[in-house]
């Protein structure tokens, strides 16, 4: 079938502002949008630029706005989006070229929430693993799935308004550690998130949850962080 793809184009070395270019290509309904972009790049216009690597929704490279909503180009098929497709870069980050945005601010926010395991207590004496029950492990399973694709953060109206907001992705990462029974720095993370640019900036708009390609219930995770902050209970 023929699909019409309208793509946001911006060449930083030539253009003052972006514009849209429409391509008509043959595609199969089971093709990924990424396949179509690859085809356009390969056959129609080599200058089209976008990031991609794994091609099956696991590396987080190719988050972009497809028909007005953040998704991974490799995890959405033509049959899901129809034959009239608009592809635009993520909102709220600087556009470097075409569909490529500057990810640095996103990773900077991630780094603010102490995104690593902290436990300075001595290891078990036998040198084996720290024990954790299956229930304790299940407590934070959801948020271990994050692939840092930024689809959530760049769909959040609070983040659009103000890039200082740590954003849902950073809070998801914080959640993964706060509720890990083996981690000892939950308090420090909550203190960071209690600041003005932390969880207070989330107004439960749900765009993030809906955008997450890993189907993480982000708003719920943020809510759990807010309640941990309120009640001090980490179980």
């Amino acid at each position, binding site marked *: 079938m023929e699909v019409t793809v309208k793509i946001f184009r911006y060449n930083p070395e030539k253009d003052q502002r972006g514009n849209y270019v429409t391509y008509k290509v043959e595609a199969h309904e089971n093709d990924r949008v990424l396949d179509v972009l690859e085809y356009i790049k390969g056959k129609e216009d080599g200058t089209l630029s976008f990031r991609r690597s794994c091609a099956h929704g696991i590396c987080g490279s190719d988050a972009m706005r497809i028909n007005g909503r953040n998704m991974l180009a490799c995890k959405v098929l033509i049959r899901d989006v129809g034959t009239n497709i608009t592809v635009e870069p993520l909102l709220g980050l600087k556009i470097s070229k075409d569909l490529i945005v500057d990810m640095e601010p996103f990773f900077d926010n991630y780094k603010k929430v102490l995104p690593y395991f902290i436990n300075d207590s001595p290891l078990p004496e036998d040198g084996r693993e720290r024990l954790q029950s299956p229930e304790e492990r299940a407590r934070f399973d959801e948020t271990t799935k994050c692939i840092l694709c930024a689809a959530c953060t760049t769909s959040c109206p609070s983040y659009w308004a*103000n890039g200082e907001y740590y954003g849902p992705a950073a809070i998801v990462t914080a959640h993964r550690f706060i509720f890990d*029974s083996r981690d000892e720095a939950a*308090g420090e993370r909550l203190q960071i998130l*209690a*600041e003005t640019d932390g969880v*207070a900036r989330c107004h439960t708009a749900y765009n993030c949850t809906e955008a997450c390609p890993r189907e993480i219930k982000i708003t719920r995770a943020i809510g759990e962080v807010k309640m941990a902050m*309120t009640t*001090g209970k980490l179980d």
Partner: protein
Amino acid sequence: MTTKSRRLSIKDRGLTNFEAVMWIFTRLSALAIYGLILAGLIGALVMGARNNMNFADVMRWAFMPNVTHVQSTDLQDLDPWASPFWKLTASALLLVAAAHGIHGLVVIADDYIASKSGRNFIRLLSIVFLLAMSGMGLWLIWTS
């Protein structure tokens, strides 16, 4: 295996932070507003609103149980409506709603203003605003 439950003190979990406290306050004040409105509604019905007030009047009263809000109705005896109990209820509603609403404005401003100084300015402004509104409102409630 046994699992230990983990708890954090108020300070440890950052609940001394203004935003964190206000986050909870917003929810609690929302519930309080509901409670006060409900009180106003029930009070109005008990005091005979069914016969002498229209829908709009009742709503007006429920949202602010201040006697001026029922002066234009067919009510004969306004005294119970002007009792200190209702003045207190109205004051509580005023203060809670003003704090809730003005902090709501601060939240919105914080979304768009990221600079420290800008945010402090808004906070200052909001305090002035809060004091002014509360002052005027209280004066209106207790002098009418």
